[in-house]
């Protein structure tokens, strides 16, 4: 039998140490989803009304280049969160998101969550701190990628 969303959240690193009441509130905005390999989950400039907590599989964050085709910026896997454009106006996706392989995830309704965060600022703050951690780690990893660390050092 499929576990309910609240039970699944207790297993996901992003939510697992959240208080039970918050988790319960947030679970109300989530649903289980499954994507096939290659499926496009989000498209640049489309309304960003959801985000994903990956349970299984790998997703890629991509951007289209007319000269070079789709460029993968980063991949994300089980335990990761995908999407934060739903948090900030204009609520549009800035990148494409694709399932690299079969993906199982919890999809959250962004508008539903924003409403709950507005009504309960303490929960909103807790939620925002968790997202700030994601931003920080993602930025740190991106900086390392940009440094081209494995490039040549002549000797």
């Amino acid at each position, binding site marked *: 039998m499929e576990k309910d969303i609240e039970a699944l959240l207790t297993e996901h*690193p992003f939510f697992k140490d959240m208080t039970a009441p918050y988790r319960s509130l947030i679970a109300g905005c989530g649903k289980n989803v499954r994507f096939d390999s290659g499926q496009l989950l989000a498209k640049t400039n489309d309304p960003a009304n959801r985000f994903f907590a990956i349970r299984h599989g*790998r997703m*890629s964050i991509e951007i289209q280049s007319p000269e070079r*085709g789709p*460029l*993968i*910026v*980063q*991949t994300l*896997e*089980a*335990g990761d969160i995908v999407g934060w454009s739903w948090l900030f106006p204009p609520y549009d996706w800035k990148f494409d998101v694709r399932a*690299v*392989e079969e993906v199982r995830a919890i999809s959250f309704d962004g508008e539903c969550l924003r409403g709950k965060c507005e009504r309960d600022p303490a929960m909103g703050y807790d939620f925002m701190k968790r997202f700030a951690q994601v931003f920080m780690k993602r930025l*740190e*990893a*991106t900086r*390392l*990628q940009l*440094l*081209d*660390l*494995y*490039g*040549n*050092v*002549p*000797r």
Partner: protein
Amino acid sequence: MEMSLAEPMLTLPLRVRKNRKETHDTRTLELVSDNAGNGPAWRPGQFMMLYAFGSGEIPISISGDPARRDTIIHTVRAVGDVSRAICEAKAGSSIGVRGPFGSAWPTDRYEEHDIVLVAGGIGLAPLRPVLYTIMANRSRYTRVSLLIGARSPDLLLYRGEMLQWRKHEIDVRLTVDAAIPGWQGAVGAVTTLIPRIEVNAAHSAAFIVGPEIMMRFVVLALAQRGVPLNRLFVSLERNMKCAVGFCGHCQLGPAFICKDGPIFPYSQLERWLAIRNV
């Protein structure tokens, strides 16, 4: 042939038996002695000084199987005149060799522990002897993870050996900074692999090789997972010239990388690594 550290400045010529292409700029050379007998005994993590006659001498980690005394194997990336000359050495030609030098990975000390190996770019070469050691003694270690970061998929080393590593229950994970068409694997910094592995952090040790900036962030990520700081080992590289601590070119704070290293507990030299221009 037996080489001895009693003659550390003596260069011995070894014959290139094989020169195999790894990537567009990286080759793996098998060196053998023309005299009958074994080559020098060495331990995983140690390096040799390789001399391309007429070009110069550079330190290169040994990347082969420590159980195979008849062949010395080095993986070399052509990034300068000397390394290019070594990479271009034809089978049958000679390379001058001094060594082995330096400290080794503490593989014996951490038997019955989880082992996390993290390699960036050419840094996989100095860890390959550890992989041979673990495969030969797999039951002595608990979980073993190998995390590999590369610039792009075409620059991954030893691709043909990964299946063998996995057969020995080594959790091999790859990531690249930049994907190429058809790449289905992970894209991102090697640090992003660390939260994904299973590790009994309190009962583990990590061996890390790559650019120093990478190692610094890998150390932070592993420490965040709970791996004790005194069990995080790195392989450092500085301007090694004499390889025996005489010339001082590779001095870092109180240590000579060639003689006291190249393998160090990260905590031993951490403060020196953070100082600019040292």
